[in-house]
């Protein structure tokens, strides 16, 4: 990836120095810059747990009925790290059930709260990173998903998992084509209808409009108490981010700029659908894997979050034509995968193989983008594949977790499974923060968890 932070590899710098020990000051500075480089981060959220017996490789083998496609892929398997033993570590007994608990807590580290319905109890790690780190990408964060639509009260919180703060849910963007326009549209060559001067004037006008909006917000901010000010703070931050994107030349990976400017979805005319309508779910899942890979390869988003459906999803998976599938996967399969229902178990495995296939596809797509230094977009990314539950019947012990990608060298080693016993899930957020260059000792309500034990971080 030819982003500025990867212009000089450590090896190149050392070779330039002519010695592994004598490094001139300007190169030490370059090392320092490299030290703060960070991977593109993608957080995936699956629902309804997995079949534990078929998920984790056994013994010393790298073989798993569910993960076989992922682990045996020649490019993606060696870049995959499994984290076994993650336990959803709740502080209390929050409202709702395992779906709500994991949905809201896996990436936030805190219990969900009630806002009439279970809702996120604090900021998710993507939003924390966006607030704390200086991302250079045009978009600090982007949240998208498939079939995450409109719900009744009891499930309103399950429409989206990232939160800016307690109860302030980041909306899930569903329209794949609108997202292409949003992400890549700005990279398209502008029509030369008025020349550069006209473009500069228009930019100045838009900046002026946004400045006025920001001033209106600041005035409003000054009139509010602390609780209400949170709303305006988030709004103001959004305006500033948007202005930044407008003001800077939106450069994707320069080496790939023309390619990025012409990025398009491989399939047209697949509309997002509402709750319960899975007609396009499969096509959209694949299109979103493609979008994520394209966005990462073009370095357009700092942290990209994606949800396969909503919390406690009720997909029927008709497109998979799985023998033994029952009327409702959620109720009739996942909830019944309790060790005594062989049909439920076999369907659960097939459904989870489907998700593993999507993650494999994402990895393959990332691996297909070579970088100038010989690495691939997969090497410079960290894809976290998480799940709201450990098992279909709402188990919270053993949440299936996989890291895919080299994390820009932040993972010292990949292609193995961390299996050192039970670890609290707050270690996930802590690990992510440290990998992303935000040193931290804990995450969520556990301030001293540290990152995952057994995971070798650079």
């Amino acid at each position, binding site marked *: 990836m030819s982003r500025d932070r990867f212009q000089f590899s450590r090896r190149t710098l050392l070779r330039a120095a002519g010695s592994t020990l004598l490094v001139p000051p300007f190169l030490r500075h370059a090392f320092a810059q490299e030290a703060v480089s960070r991977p593109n981060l993608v957080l995936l959220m699956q629902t309804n747990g997995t079949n534990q017996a078929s998920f984790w490789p056994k013994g010393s083998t790298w073989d798993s009925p569910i993960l076989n496609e992922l682990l045996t892929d020649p490019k993606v398997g060696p870049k995959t790290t499994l984290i076994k033993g993650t336990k959803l570590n709740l502080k209390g007994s929050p409202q709702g059930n395992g779906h709500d608990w994991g949905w809201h807590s896996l990436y936030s580290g805190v219990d969900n709260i009630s806002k*009439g319905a279970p809702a996120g109890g604090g900021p998710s790690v993507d939003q924390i990173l966006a607030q704390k780190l200086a991302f250079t990408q045009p978009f600090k964060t982007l949240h998208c998903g498939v079939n995450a639509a409109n719900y009744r009260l009891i499930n309103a919180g399950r429409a989206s998992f990232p939160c800016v703060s307690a109860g302030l849910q*980041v909306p899930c963007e569903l329209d794949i084509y609108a997202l292409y326009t949003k992400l890549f549209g700005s990279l398209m060559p502008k029509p030369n209808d008025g020349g550069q001067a006209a473009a500069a004037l228009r930019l100045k006008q838009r900046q002026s409009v946004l400045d006025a909006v920001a001033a209106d917000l600041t005035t409003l901010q000054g009139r509010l108490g602390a609780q209400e000010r949170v709303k305006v703070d988030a709004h103001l931050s959004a305006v500033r981010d948007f202005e930044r994107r407008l003001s800077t030349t939106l450069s994707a990976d320069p080496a790939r700029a023309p390619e990025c400017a012409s990025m398009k979805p491989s399939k047209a005319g697949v509309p997002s659908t509402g709750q319960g309508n899975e007609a396009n779910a499969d096509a959209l899942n694949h299109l979103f894997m493609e979008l994520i890979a394209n966005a990462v390869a073009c370095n357009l988003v700092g942290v990209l979050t994606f949800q396969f459906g909503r919390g406690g999803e009720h997909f029927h998976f008709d497109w998979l034509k799985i023998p033994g599938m029952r009327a409702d996967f959620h109720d009739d399969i996942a909830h019944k995968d309790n060790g005594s229902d062989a049909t439920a178990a076999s369907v659960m495995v097939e459904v989870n193989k489907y998700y593993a296939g999507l993650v494999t596809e994402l990895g393959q797509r990332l691996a297909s983008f070579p970088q100038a230094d010989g690495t691939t977009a997969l090497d410079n990314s960290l894809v976290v594949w998480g799940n709201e539950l450990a098992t279909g019947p709402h188990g919270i012990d053993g949440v299936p977790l996989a890291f895919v990608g080299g994390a820009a060298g932040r993972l010292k080693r990949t292609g193995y499974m961390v299996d050192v016993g039970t670890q609290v899930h707050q270690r996930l957020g802590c690990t992510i923060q440290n990998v992303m260059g935000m040193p931290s000792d804990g995450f969520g309500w556990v301030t001293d968890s540290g990152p995952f034990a057994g995971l070798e971080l650079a």
Partner: protein
Amino acid sequence: MKSAIWRSIALSGGLSLLAGCQGSIGGAEPSSAPLPPGAAGSGSVATPPGGGGGATACQALPARRIRRLARREYANVVSDLLGAAAADAVLAALPVEPRVRGFDNQDAFLFVSGPFQEAVAELAATLAAKADVAALAPCSTSDTQPCVASFIRSFGSRAYGRDLTQDELDRATSVAALGESFAVSVRLVIELVLQSPNLLYLTELGSPNAPVAAQATVSLTSDELASQLSFLLAGTRPDVTLREAAKNGQLATAAGLRAQAERMLAQPSGVAALTRFIVGWLDLGPLSDMPKSAEAFPEFTDTVASAMQAELDGFVTEQLKGGDGTLPSFFTTVPATALASPLSAIYGADLQMSGLDPSRRRGVLSLPGLLTYHSADAHSGPVERGLLVRRQLLCQDVPPPPQSALDRIANLPVDDLDAAHTTRQKFAAHVNEPSCKACHQSFDPIGFGLEDMDGLGRYRTTEHGLPVDSHGELTGTDVDGPFEGPAALSAKLAQSKQVAACMVSHFFELALARPAGVDDACVLDAWTSDFVAGGQHIEDLVFAYVTHPAFGARKDDR
């Protein structure tokens, strides 16, 4: 005295029921759940001076607040400013917000995220570029500066529901000055106004010049009162008449507020607002979105869904416009469905030349549209229907299934495909297993009483060839007792004071865009008393709200 009665009913019927449920299964969070009406915490109720509409005023005021407009509301404002086509663009560009307890305007679920802000900014630029400047800002002089200034004032004040401050005028003027032509200047003002927080938020802050005094009472400005009224009854900023009333001080009195409310309710937008309330009260969404199993219900075609929707909408509108507009009428009126209805196959023998059989089809609960919406995707859904009555119509908060209950579900599954038992028989585990029974006993028996209507609202006496048992029972309410079928259930609910109090609670949620809390019990009690005493006219909910002192007062939160 009446307040005490309602509170007593609610406490004995609602909270004691819940306590049993929670006590058995745990995992609930009662302090954060919306309160049943009348469930006041002691010490939160007082009797301050003043008050309109015969209601007792309350000291515990809501805090100052801003609320982001819902997508629908924002589209309405844009429509007023730029025309209906612009509103369509808004609806296409902005995400649909969660519908919480039936309503789309709930403050806790609305905020301006990065994607939302960007969508609004892009939308504002697009709409500004398309705006018909000649129509919006006609200018016949060569010196266009006064025209721009005039446009900023008029357009801005319609958008914000108030006159612009000098700072706002100055900022807009500076932005307009960057336009290379008059038209571009106007477009830049439009682009600014459409994304300004002054349009995007409904403020409940009082005068900007009021001194800060923590916990002190803050009076909303007359413009804020007008916007509160207008967003409730028209879903948009105030019209000219309401703005004038605000300017002339007519909103300073309960009578003035009521007069404006009466005027607005008489308009189509007023009926639409009440319809929106009824739809939310019944927790209904579009039937076209209902996931129904094609195997179980192949008859649920787009045509049938559309006909169900039309019948449901028509019934609600008829009660509000042509009927007596009371809460009981929603339970007791026989739907006026004609024999030629596309739903004749659904109704079967219930629909004759003379109309629907009133012994089976009476009230909104007997409509196929409602019975379809509140059912499971593959069967009649006694749990869903029971919860509709218990949670939504009685406001008795049943917590979501806790982990322990879901573990039980995994071990005691209900098989939708089992054709050897009726739906009721399949759910027998709910009353046999203590951990299930703790909660399910409060709502399953209600749903069982509607078992004579299948998942599409078709009357039935058998299921899988087995006789259907549709004997149900209401417990823990002020209208306890057995019943059979939706008409009989409706007859009971029409008599329930708890249902009336619950409807008031729902109206509170719509009007204040948040669930009621402990501090709101006084207001709820007062409104409920007036509502019941006045014959439970839906419009009276509006009058009780807008004439209550809490309508125009807030607590200083700084």
